[in-house]
């Protein structure tokens, strides 16, 4: 698969169909996002490693795509995406951070092992070009753990979990769809600086609520958390509620407005008359 992808990208660059290819590069045993502008560099291109999503905006509030689009407006770049990468692109585009129209999205599928490791329900992009679609693991089974708890049990569970938090902000910084400049997690009136562990559940409430209609379930926050707090448990409960209540699945339809950013009712809701 990798050879074909490299060949395809080299083709795009030499035929000048795109100004650059954005993907992952492996060098000296490290994998990191890279903007390829010369076909000969493409030997370093890699895919599918367990590298958290490619397009995280933190900390400079910019990623390579938005920086590129700001400098060279209207120029096309090809982007190599997995399912989560593509969903992330759509969500940040809806929030004005990048222009999807100027991207040539080239998708590849993750394999079943990868999907299981990420708890990813949709381990393939819509613009699928390379690889075979596999079924992701079910969210229902995953969240059953807290769904089946009583309210009091959940409280006890999360009190214990969040008491481990060292406020490294890794969950936030690794999130590809978290775009704010000023962050409420740093708001003193809400969760004061210097308190450790943060008050239950204030600090985490911000993270959870703010991303409720943009979380693409990539799992980057959990991966980033040095204290192994299972943040994705709540993330997935909320994603489910957003789907059921607001008929919205983050990262799915690039044209659909995020429900919490729109005055309109979901058309499904109107159709059902609820």
């Amino acid at each position: 698969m990798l050879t074909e992808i490299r060949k395809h990208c080299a083709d795009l660059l030499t035929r000048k169909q795109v100004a650059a290819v954005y993907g992952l590069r492996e060098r000296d045993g490290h994998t990191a996002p890279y903007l390829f502008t010369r076909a000969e560099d493409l030997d370093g291109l890699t895919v599918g490693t367990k590298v958290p999503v490619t397009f995280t905006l933190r900390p400079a509030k910019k990623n390579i795509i938005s920086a590129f689009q700001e400098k060279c407006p209207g120029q096309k770049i090809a982007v190599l995406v997995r399912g989560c990468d593509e969903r992330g692109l759509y969500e940040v585009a809806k929030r004005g951070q990048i222009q999807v129209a100027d991207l040539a999205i080239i998708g590849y599928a993750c394999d079943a092992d990868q999907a299981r490791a990420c708890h990813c329900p949709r381990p393939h992009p819509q613009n699928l070009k390379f690889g075979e679609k596999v079924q992701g693991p079910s969210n229902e089974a995953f969240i059953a753990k807290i769904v089946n708890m009583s309210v009091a049990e959940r409280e006890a569970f999360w009190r214990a979990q969040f008491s481990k938090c060292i406020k490294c902000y890794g969950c936030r910084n690794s999130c590809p769809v978290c775009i704010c400049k000023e962050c409420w997690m740093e708001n003193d009136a809400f969760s004061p600086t210097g308190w450790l562990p943060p008050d239950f559940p204030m600090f985490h409430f911000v993270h959870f609520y703010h991303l409720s209609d943009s979380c693409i379930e990539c799992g980057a926050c959990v991966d980033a958390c040095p204290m192994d707090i299972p943040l994705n448990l709540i993330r997935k409960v909320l994603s489910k509620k957003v789907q059921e209540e607001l008929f919205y699945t983050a990262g799915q339809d690039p044209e659909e407005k995020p429900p919490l950013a729109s005055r309109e009712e979901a058309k499904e809701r109107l159709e059902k008359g609820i």
Partner: protein
Amino acid sequence: MKTIKLKINGIETEAPDRTPLLQAAERMGIRIPTLCHHPLLEPYGVCRICTVEVRIRNRVRMVTACNYPVTNGIEVFTDSERVRRNRRMILEWMLARCGHVPVLNRLAEEYGVTEPRFGRGDDDCILCGLCVKVCSEVVGANVLGFFDRGPNRTVSTAYDRTSDRCITCGACAQVCPTGAIRIKDDQEGIYQAMPMGPLTSINIDFMQAVPRKAVIDRDSCIHFKTGKCQVCVDVCEAKAIDHKQEDRVEEVEVGTILLTTGFQLQDPRVLKEYGYGKYKNIMTSLDFEVLNNAGGPTAGKILTADGKVPKSIGIVHCVGSRDQKYHEYCSRVCCMYALKFAHLIKEKIHGCEVYNFYIDMRCFGKGYEEFYNRLLREGVNFVRGKVAEINDAALDPSEEGKLIMRAEDTMIGVVRRIPVDMVVLCLAMEAKPEAKHLSHLFSCSTGKDGFFTEKHPKLAPVSTPADGIFIAGACQGPKDIPDTVAQAGAAASAALSLIQRGEVETEAVTATIQEEMCSGCQICVGVCPYTAITYDKGKNKSSINDALCKGCGTCVAACPAGAAYQKHFRDQQIFAEIDGILAI
């Protein structure tokens, strides 16, 4: 146009060249009999009753005045012996066909035809053709025509069938000099056949209308049906009629608005037990107002649907009001106008029995209780009880055709059965259905009952929560005219005091975006109901137009970064409030 000289009955006169002789004579006050002539129609010259004697350079001719064009130097005799002899002959022929038509007989008498030589026929139609011509020339419906020849000639519709081109304007019946054409009224009754709508196609809505101007009712105006007629245009001396006028939408900029959109009467049909629409002599209070009005269809006479003077009338109070099934509230005005009705009936119809069915008499105003006492003296019957049912189930022949009202008289504790000729239902005043829409348009609110809500019942009774928007009258709740006028006066002066000041103070609660915190996500743009927020692509920032922002704070709550804030409702203030109220 050239003017010529002529002599009529020996008198010199002038007339425009080639005007019809009939017109020239009429201008001199000389009457020439006519039958087939009508000022609105082209002359036809078919009945020949207008025959006169014309002398042109010593040549004498008998001509029809209605279509003979005058020329210079002619001499005319309109009533010479020869002319009279001619007319007698014509009348004899006509009587032979239509021996009993009044216009012909009046003329026959005038010309001394007593025993027509050819006998008297039984037809009504003198074949003047006015109907045919009015239908085609004026109305433009072309329904009528002549059929057959000679003695069999008739006027009719094609194939003698009911014509679907007939617009039932009645113009043919109107011009027919003999009454041979009658418009059959398929609908029974008087007030029901002539409902609240206009009585003619061009009319003044009602005597107190403001502005008091005539308007054309497009639905019944002939011109809008056939493209012809426009008789009114010729008749109007002020040249005020313009059929091409269209509705115009005009935009007016104002600083204050008074909402006085009033009420509607409840639909009587929902109260099945009262049989409105089923029995023709059951009417709403508003119908009765129309019937009783001097400008109404019966010129103010109180008549039943068959045009008879009623001998007994039942008036039902509180229909749909003070009723958990419909409106819990009291409509306030019904008791008093029901008393007014009773009084007017007593005044207009001597000996008419009036029954007022009431739950409680609510005579709350100045002089009202006194009016009630006066009615008691006038012999109006008051039955305290809610009418259960109205039907036409007669028990004996004397009750045939009457309406039977059943109600428990709670004063004496018996169920009464009262037959009457007419029933008036005093229906609830209710909020108009469009009030809801208006309340959105004007940012005020409606209450549970649908009427507009005032800002404060005691301290701001004509204001609404929206600055510069005032309410008065029945749109705020049921009330009578004195209360409406008082409220309207108050609302007008409240509006005037704003106008005098020249500005409206709005609460300074608009929202602002702190540029340095804004990430340009445009979430706020999507949630603002007033499109007050614009996104600047160059800067990648959103900003709020202060003049458009109404201060709802929706964007503030939506902004994940806390970049947007609302003046007087900043986060710190809310948190402090939460702290404050939880400290006690």
